[in-house]
């Protein structure tokens, strides 16, 4: 593919007086494993919602594989997968039913949805829990089920919001390996996180967002600039805590 997988131009969104996203531009090449990092409240989730046709922007354009998301949201949704920060699943469906339902909604035949669902549950290590209600799943299991739902139609671009938050190391490893395999086949992943170590480990492209604006965007090497990503991030976004002189009592054994 010639153009970028994700192209964002001048994206803006305000909620009342507060400007959550203040005009962001972003280009992610196809086949990238891209990270969008920023402190809490920086506008990561709002930006991802606008890129995935869930939140109408005030201004700007989002192109996925050259397709304008906001002029044809349905066509865009057919080629993307989304894993939100809080898994949006039907609690009263079993894992197996949820995946089949997601497949059917993406236009797969019943047999195809069931077959792909079974394979994804297997890879995600959920086969043993396939017939339990999602209401009874742990956080990690819910994230894995949500990932299964986002992948069942084989999207070319996958968006994830804080994919590993609250997930145990074993589930995290399963998710990471599946994503790496997905990117290895030429598909694109954009995920938001504030866990720098994770971004540094898996991403080849990093964008840092703060106060609704992209502060820096480029290859992980470029953004790090010879430091750890954590240090580069703190240098760019600035330390938020003030001096700790007042805490003289902290750490002493006396009450």
């Amino acid at each position, binding site marked *: 593919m010639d153009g970028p997988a994700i192209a964002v131009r001048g994206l803006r969104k305000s909620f009342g007086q507060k400007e959550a996203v203040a005009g962001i531009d972003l280009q992610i090449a196809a086949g990238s494993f891209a990270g969008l990092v920023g402190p809490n409240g920086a506008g990561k989730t709002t930006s991802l919602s606008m890129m995935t046709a869930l939140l109408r922007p005030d201004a700007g354009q989002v192109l996925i594989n050259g397709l304008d998301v906001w002029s044809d949201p349905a066509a865009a*949704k057919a080629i993307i997968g989304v894993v939100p920060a809080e898994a949006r*699943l039907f609690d009263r469906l079993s894992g197996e039913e949820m995946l089949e339902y997601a497949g*059917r909604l993406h236009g797969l035949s019943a047999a195809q949805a069931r077959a792909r669902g079974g394979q994804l549950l297997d890879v995600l290590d959920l086969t043993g829990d396939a*017939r339990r*209600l999602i209401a009874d799943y742990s956080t990690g299991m819910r994230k894995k089920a949500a990932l299964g739902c986002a992948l069942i139609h084989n999207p070319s671009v996958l968006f994830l919001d804080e994919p590993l938050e609250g997930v145990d190391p074993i589930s995290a490893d399963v998710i990471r390996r599946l994503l790496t395999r997905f990117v290895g086949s030429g598909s694109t992943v954009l995920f938001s996180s504030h866990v720098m170590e994770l971004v540094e480990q898996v991403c080849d492209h990093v964008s840092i967002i703060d106060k609704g604006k992209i502060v820096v965007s480029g290859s992980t090497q470029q953004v790090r600039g010879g430091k750890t990503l954590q240090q580069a991030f703190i240098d760019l976004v600035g330390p938020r805590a003030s001096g700790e002189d007042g805490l003289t009592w902290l750490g002493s054994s006396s009450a």
Partner: protein
Amino acid sequence: MARLLVRLKLRLLVNALRASTSAKVSFILSTTWAVIVAAAVFALLASLRGAAAAVDLTTVIFTVLAFGWLILPVISFGLDTTLDPAMLTPYPLRTRPLAVSLLAASAAGPWPVANLIGLLGAVVGLASGWLGVLVGLAAAALQLLFCITLARFVTTSMARVLRSRRGRDLAAFVFVPIVAGYEFVTQVVPRAAAEGKLTAASFAGVDAWMRWLPPGLAAHAIADASDGRAGAALARLALLAAVIAVLGWLWIRSLARALVTPDASTQSSRVRGGALPFARFGLRGTFAARFWIYQRRDPAELAYWGIVTVIMVAVSISTILTPDGHPAVMLASSVFGAAFIGNFHANAVGATGPAFVAETAGLTGERSLRAYLSGLNISLGVIAAPLLIVVSLGLAALDRRPGYAVLAIAVDLAGLGAALGLASVFSVLAPYPMTKRVGTPMRVASDGFAVYGLAGTFGILFGVAVAVVPVIVAEVLTSGAPVLARDLALVACAAGYGLALASAGVRIGARAARYRLPEICQVAIRSRL
């Protein structure tokens, strides 16, 4: 410690009042209601002075008040956040002082004060002589303490159950008997009292056993002291105090256990059958399958069907059981039944919550939106139509005038179509976020959106009432026709008419939703279910 928890409770209340207008309104309403109840109970108890069955009636009133304290935590699933022991687990608190502090916090607030003022009416009603007044004051205080300890014991015992998913699921079904009980009291008791079947003398018999319940002990202690039987009065008070002590001890034990017992709700059974039903019926079948599964598995949905049945019966039962009652009241049952089915589903997206975002993957245009709304209608219709018909037949059988059953069924079908049609339109044009309070599976409108729910309720009730008028007019106009043919034609036409109304609603809703999907999505995301 006690002061700290009382202040914490008051602080939480003040913060809630500052944060939202609806909290302010509900606090003012609740306090006004508490003042009215306090005055009414005080006046009622005081008015018994000199009555023949004064002590018997005081016993009954004391018992009813204690029952209120028992049932209140069951209805509201725990009263406030200070009192959930789980909130206090991180702090180094010993169980006994914690229990005393929680009791003190429970006593702070308009309702306990209102209850105490009301109970003091018994001093006016029963006590005579200084000993009578003294025992009366002590009895009122002990009765309040008994009520609070009882409520705390129930809340703490339930807290463990209600923190598990299974427990919360089961709790939904408590709503059905509560609605039924409320309807019984508001319909049957005033009628029985008006007909002279319920008088003060009716309660004389119950006192024989109620006097030995803790509230009875309190009431009879006042009477004993006033009659000069000081020993008996003090013995009764001592027995009541002992009951409170035992209840308190049980509560402390239950509290100590609750503080260290984790939630075991994730141990659950598996569902039968792996595949979605109706999968071969395309997108409409897929949506219908999801809604159908929810009708069976979501406890709130199951409770809704129970409540619809209770409402239908409650609307007309007392008239039907009266010999000269007009049987046309059955039609009111049909209208209310249909309207409430629509009302409970008039915010399909808000009630679905953030999971609706997953469904938008399939909502690519007007056609798929029609599939969504009609899928919902199909899953509701296959339950609602038989339910409405069976209840109507049951009411007609009770009334022994089966002729009215046919018209009632025709109204059921037309009303159901109108209700589902309106529900589709409301779901799209006025969606609002919904919330589940901690510990209950029932959904309510999020803060500030209650007016949307009310608009839906009245809008649909009015719409259904208007929509069934042609069916009733058709019945009246064809009264001369042969009965069987007329009945068959009436039911068939009503069914067709209902179907047309429902599908008109689906079309209007789908067209309106076409360009508003992202906005509707945001409403769904704001639901906290």
